[in-house]
């Protein structure tokens, strides 16, 4: 018999308590993973989307909510005229609710008809928007799937009926869940004539930070009310992402703390309940350290079990979230490996932290007394 067998059989001999402890910890681990995984996935896919289209983001200076930022659309051609600038994409963005489909945060983008975003997406059915397409929209494939809408169907946005003239596919999950319409029309609907939310600027020669800063300054000199930031800076500081990240970490910290307390409780109970057995082990010569190892091993075994169950739950959970309408378009179907590894480490840490005090208590039991009171 190996030492670990004793720990294992102690757990297996109390299946209800062991499995409840594993489940409790697993759910905490899974919840933390889903939250952190979703917030990181959100950030990453956002970054990919922007990276594909530009190097710098130009928006209203001091804006917190980027969606409500407004810049004059006449600024676009002036940025385009700066040295090194290859492409400038200006667009208006909004979030709308499609209540009849239980979708509460669908992105609506307004683009110029010749905008690269419009011309680059792959049309799955129907056609692309073109000049003069009033009352018409293109929708992403994921949104089409989630709403069951097809080309020729109507969709209600801003209390108006729009005809779907095309369904497109995009590598970005944001685009796949979005509605595209002409910029002019969205400006009218949002009552922001001549305005865009911001610009994405693609430029050459941005290989070193000095060149990046130089271009930023040149752009900012065009208008005192605008600011230019790199795409990673923009995404990292995007208000929704920051709030998401912060809540994910706060909730995860709470979950982990509760798990440590839960583990502490389980192990204390199990030590007290077995004080006679532990007293016997000490009486027949087990050292204090060996008794502590036993308690620690049991707790770590529970943690490993919880990590395995928790990671499985989290992977399944995130896959299912992808098809949950309220978050459709915002959630990637994968949890990064780094999050899975962190979850294992966190579970082990919970196991060790939760067992320290119980292990100490077990080692302090005086054999004669412990056996007498059994």
């Amino acid at each position, binding site marked *: *018999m190996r*030492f670990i067998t004793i720990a294992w*059989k102690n757990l297996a*001999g109390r299946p209800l308590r062991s499995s409840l402890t594993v489940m409790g910890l697993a759910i905490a681990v899974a919840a933390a993973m889903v939250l952190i995984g979703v917030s990181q996935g959100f950030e990453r896919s956002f970054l990919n989307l922007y990276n594909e289209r530009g190097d710098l983001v130009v928006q209203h200076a001091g804006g917190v909510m980027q969606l409500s930022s407004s810049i004059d659309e006449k600024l676009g051609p002036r940025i385009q005229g700066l040295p090194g600038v290859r492409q400038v994409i200006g667009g208006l963005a909004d979030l709308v609710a499609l209540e009849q489909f239980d979708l509460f945060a669908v992105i609506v983008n307004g683009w110029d008809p010749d905008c690269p975003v419009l011309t680059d997406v792959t049309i799955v059915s129907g056609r692309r928007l073109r000049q003069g397409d009033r009352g018409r929209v293109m929708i992403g494939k994921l949104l089409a799937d989630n709403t069951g809408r097809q080309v020729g169907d109507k969709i209600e946005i801003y209390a108006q009926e729009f005809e779907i003239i095309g369904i497109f596919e995009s590598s970005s999950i944001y685009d796949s869940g979005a509605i595209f319409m002409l910029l002019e029309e969205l400006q009218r609907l949002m009552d922001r004539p001549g305005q865009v939310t911001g610009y994405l600027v693609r430029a050459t020669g941005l290989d070193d930070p000095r060149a990046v800063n130089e271009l930023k300054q040149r752009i900012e000199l065009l208008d005192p009310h605008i600011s230019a930031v790199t795409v990673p800076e923009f995404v990292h500081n995007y208000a929704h992402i920051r709030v998401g990240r912060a809540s994910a970490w706060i909730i995860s910290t709470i979950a982990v703390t509760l798990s440590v307390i839960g583990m502490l409780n389980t192990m204390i109970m199990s030590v007290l309940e077995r004080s*006679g*057995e532990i007293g016997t082990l000490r*009486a*027949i010569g*087990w*050292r204090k350290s060996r008794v502590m190892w036993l308690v620690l091993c049991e707790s770590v075994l529970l943690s490993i079990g919880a990590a395995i169950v928790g990671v499985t739950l989290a992977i399944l959970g995130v896959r299912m979230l992808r098809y949950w309408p309220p978050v459709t378009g915002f959630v990637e179907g994968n949890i990064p490996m780094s999050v899975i590894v962190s979850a294992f480490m966190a579970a082990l840490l919970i196991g060790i932290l939760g067992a320290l005090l119980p292990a100490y208590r077990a080692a302090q039991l005086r054999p004669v007394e412990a056996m007498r009171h059994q």
Partner: protein
Amino acid sequence: MSDVTATSTAADYLVRAENVSRMYPDGHVTALVDVSLAVRRGQYTAIVGPSGGGKSTLLNLLGALDVPTSGRVLFEEQPLSATADLDRLRARKIGFVFQSFHLLPTLTALENVQIPMFEGPRLSASQRASKAGQLLVAVGLSHRATHLPKQMSVGERQRTAIARALANDPMLLLADEPTGNLDSQVGGEILDLFDRLHRDRSMTLIVITHSAEIARRAQQIITLRDGRIVSNESVADFLSDADATTVE
């Protein structure tokens, strides 16, 4: 040879108590008062006396499970108070058998027997298992190796506990009312086992008992009452069992 008993030297003593008292502060109980005794190597000692007389307290002191309030206990003529690692002493030189067995309920007989081996001489997992198997054969339980304590009779449980006590080849076996939970027939079988250990392995035995039958098998009978030794009878080795003094 016949005068060994008469001229015992200090080196012959395995364990001794010198003017030992033990007071339990919580209940202001003085469980032992000024108790002195000596147990020779290979001797079979019985401790008898009424309940509450201090028998378990004395056994715990002799087994390095507890420390006296005053006086001292010597193991192989070494004071326990000067012994750095009492856990190691208990693990390697002393075997314990308890009235209510104290087996681990989640482990099989074979596994329970291996428990002390983790503190004994280094053995591999398979060496531990085969040694435990041999011990179970020695106590007549090889057919119960894979049974859990709850699947065994009380007699079988006590045999398992005895095999466990022998795991690290101790020189001293301490038993606190080992037959107290057994009927007389099963109890008799356990006593026969003790006799064999005493005879075949020259094991030193100290056994607490209420049973006159055990006491009859012993070579030294110590009677405790109210924490004091009220009699200490030595039965010479050459006397046959039938001639030994019967107590109680």
